[in-house]
């Protein structure tokens, strides 16, 4: 059945599977709930199927690449390579789940057509980022992601939401500009922007070392804004005023992940890890990541607002990916990269649960969570799994990441990383365990701030199922880490490409 041109069009179809439903949804009247749901879920499922085909095809030696000339010498390239498959698969799976959750969460609220339209566009941009075959395409979708996320953040139209939107834009537009300048400059030097494993800069540019360092800083600063690297993280805790599905999207599926993914791309496929080391930029990046890890954890400790605490936790956790990328050594790289998946699955669970608490009981603050485990046992069970994963307790997914990271750091002779990891894990425990303690062991207050009843179940099924599924997934990711086709194995495969000449 595979005609040749499917190898060209499949990546585009994956993009279109969320783009077209998204555009259609904009024009749906508010009350066409069934049609909208159908479009949403249909698009999400179709995307999942297409991604499945894509992965299957890549395994069977197909080379998927879509090319479209933007400017003379510069193409828009969508290509399925090993790294992009990882991210595409992650976003496709999590998008489906988040869509289900969002449909449940926003039931009856105004302007849903607009919301879901941008929601779909957001995922489209993310998939574009994942499939980008050169830095130009990456930049295009990365900027598009900025734009389509903004309406989601300000969706509620409250004063705080608009303020968060403004802050988000201030950071991301500035970051985008930095990325743009870096990209143009690099293009001027190298004459090409095609991602290649082990990087293209070393092959195409001779000399210009100072410029290359500046460009590296520009690029990393550009993508680092979305990845919430230390001085650029300010928008993320603000953005938690958005609705829970949006937070899930920001933290786990799209924005933050796109940033982290971008760092991986820049280090591996633009500069190449060896060249980055020879330029002397890898170690500073690793140190920055380590500082971010500790800083995020410390800040998380002092937040009473649950979503804010989770947001700072994200700041910390995403930098594991950066850390793994920047430490020179395949093992650490595996740990970092696999955390892209693991953190996504775990953090989305946590945000779903936080959303459930807010939506069902009106609980927003940790201090209001006393005994919430008795009222909503399933939700809190999922939360607990996610939290333990974050802490890095074996056999959860998070443990795998941290284990590889530590091992890799030792292997690369960068022993200083281990205390960072340990310290961070302790901090993780320090900010998650009290929450769990409160939820399970404290006596509930007489009444919840704003309780809604859902009959026999603790909350609506559309809200309950997604966290359960993702919690289960994060268990599975840890338990079956060494099974074939697990993200871990996949990441190992990617890393062999990046490291073996």
């Amino acid at each position: 059945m595979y005609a040749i041109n499917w190898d060209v069009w499949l990546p585009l179809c994956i993009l279109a599977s969320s783009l077209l439903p998204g555009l259609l949804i904009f024009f749906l009247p508010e009350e066409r709930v069934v049609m909208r749901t159908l479009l949403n879920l249909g698009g999400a499922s179709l995307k999942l199927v297409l991604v499945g085909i894509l992965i299957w095809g890549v395994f069977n030696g197909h080379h998927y690449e879509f090319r479209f000339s933007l400017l003379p010498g510069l193409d828009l390239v969508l290509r399925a390579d090993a790294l992009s498959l990882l991210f595409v698969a992650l976003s496709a799976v999590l998008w489906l789940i988040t869509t289900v959750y969002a449909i449940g969460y926003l039931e009856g609220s105004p302007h849903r057509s607009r919301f879901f339209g941008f929601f779909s566009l957001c995922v489209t941009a993310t998939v574009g980022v994942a499939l980008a075959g050169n830095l130009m395409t990456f930049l295009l979708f990365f900027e598009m992601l900025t734009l389509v996320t903004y309406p989601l953040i300000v969706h509620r139209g409250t004063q705080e939401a608009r303020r968060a939107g403004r802050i988000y834009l201030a950071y991301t537009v500035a970051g985008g500009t930095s990325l743009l300048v870096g990209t143009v400059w690099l293009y001027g030097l190298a004459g090409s922007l095609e991602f290649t494993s082990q990087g293209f800069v070393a092959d195409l540019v001779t000399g210009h070392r100072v410029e290359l360092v500046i460009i590296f800083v520009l690029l990393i600063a550009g993508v680092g804004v979305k990845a919430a690297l230390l001085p650029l993280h300010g928008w993320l805790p603000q953005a938690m005023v958005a609705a829970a599905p949006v937070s899930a999207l920001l933290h786990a599926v799209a924005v933050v992940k796109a940033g982290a993914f971008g760092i991986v791309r820049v280090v591996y496929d633009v500069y190449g890890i060896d060249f980055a080391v020879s330029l002397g930029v890898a170690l500073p990046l690793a140190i920055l990541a380590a500082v971010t890890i500790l800083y995020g954890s410390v800040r998380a400790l002092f937040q009473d607002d649950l979503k804010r605490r989770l947001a700072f936790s994200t700041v910390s956790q995403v930098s594991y990916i950066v850390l793994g990328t920047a430490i020179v050594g395949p093992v650490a790289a595996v740990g970092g990269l696999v955390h892209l998946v693991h953190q996504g699955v775990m953090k989305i669970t946590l945000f779903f649960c936080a959303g459930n608490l807010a939506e069902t009981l009106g609980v927003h603050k940790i201090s209001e969570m006393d005994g919430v485990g008795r009222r909503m046992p399933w939700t809190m069970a999922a939360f607990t799994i996610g939290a333990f994963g974050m802490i890095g307790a074996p056999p959860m997914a998070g443990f795998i990441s941290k284990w590889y990271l530590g091992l890799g750091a030792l292997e690369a002779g960068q022993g200083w990383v281990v205390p960072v990891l340990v310290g961070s894990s302790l901090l993780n425990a320090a900010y998650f365990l009290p929450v769990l303690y409160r939820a399970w062991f404290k006596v509930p207050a007489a009444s919840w701030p704003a309780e809604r009843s859902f009959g026999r179940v603790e909350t609506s099924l559309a809200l309950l199922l997604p966290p359960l599924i993702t919690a289960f997934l994060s268990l599975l990711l840890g338990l079956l880490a060494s099974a074939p086709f697990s993200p871990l194995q996949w990441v190992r495969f990617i890393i062999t490409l990046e490291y073996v000449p």
Partner: protein
Amino acid sequence: MLAQSFSWQVTVIILPLVAALLCFMLPKWGRWLGLVMAFAITGSVIVLAYQVMNQGALRYAVGGWGAPLGIDLYVDGLSLLMLMVVALVGLVVSVYSMAYFKAGKAVHFWPLWMLLWTAMNALFLSADIFNLYVTLELLGLAAVALVALAGGVDALGAAMRYLLVSLLGSLCYLLGVALLYHSFGTVDIALLAERVESTPAVWAAMALMTVGLLFKTALFPLHFWLPPAHASAPAPVSALLSALVVKASFYILLRLWLEVFSQDSTAAAQLLGVLGAAAVLWGGVQALRQTRLKMLIAYSTVSQIGYLFLVFPLASLMAWQAGLYLLLSHALAKAAMFLAAGNILCFGGHDRIADLDRVAQRLPLSLTAFALAGVSSMGLPFSGGFIGKWMLLDAALQSGQWWWVAVIIVGGLLAAAYIFNVIGHSFTRAEISHEAKPVPAIMEWSALVLALAAVLMGLFASWPLAVMDIGAPFGGGGS
């Protein structure tokens, strides 16, 4: 024989002129005549484009005399793209105006607009600097009369100022024409390009013509007349002025600099660049300070015009292309913005940014148009503005003049700030305070179509770039 003498260049000029006469003669039918003719003009521009793409640049001797005695019409990639963007924006604005102008104003609008169109088409096709003067006057007077159509004190005052500035600019230009004619005995651009040498008269002509055209193009600090004029005109007129009319004088400037003044003018080019940079920044800051939407858009035009002048100090092929690309996408985006602002103004009866009153929900199409056009103005993907900005950055970095990069970046950030300021205000939860007037769907869609065109320019850049090469208008100005 007939096929040879029949020229689409002439058709493109004569059709709007005939349309103006007809609209004036038959005022009752003016709107429909105007619309039909708008389609006809657009059609003939398309045919002309087809012809030029197949045959390359075309020169046409009016009256069969040929330069220097007669006047030549010349169309190459540069003029073709200008004609096409005028046709596209003109067509959409015509459709929009069908709904916008009620009977009383329509009687005046249509003939004036058709004469404006005549002036622009004639201007982009002319290869003769004195003929260009006549088209400039036609253009300026038509634009002024259209601004005055709004009728309020603001509009009349702005139109008056605009008229005086426009006449001043024309006279400066004409003085330059006189000097050039007497230096080289011709007013044909191509012949001038052959004969030109560096003499005091040429320098004086360059200074005079450049200043005159800068007045009309509203480059900082000669921009003072633009914001009130563009903001107080009726919405379709604002769109035409901001999108097209200021570009017409820029086009002449570009032609002259490319062909006639191309030799050793680096210092002057740097000066233009500096003024452009100042315009980018000043326009952006002023736009940010505005409380009225249309004033904001007008200042945004001041800022965007500045970008076009950053091209002069770079003077590489890529830079010229970038400038033209920015010009085209700005034309589309700015027209879309003014039309969208017109919708908002019609809808709520005011255009105060601070209480846009949930237009995001109530006029989603117009707001989308504004936002998409805004994306192009900011230079974010996917939009023509992004492509232009990319090329401009590339050209700036390659020429080693990195300081322009800083200007481009800050300008983009300012644009993002003022655009999102508007969009943010449309996402409020405020209670609806105004009784709103419904806006005809055709007006909303018109704005959106132009905005989408600006977006599409970000995806299909190869084609306009290929058209730009026809006749190599930038070939002589290369590095």
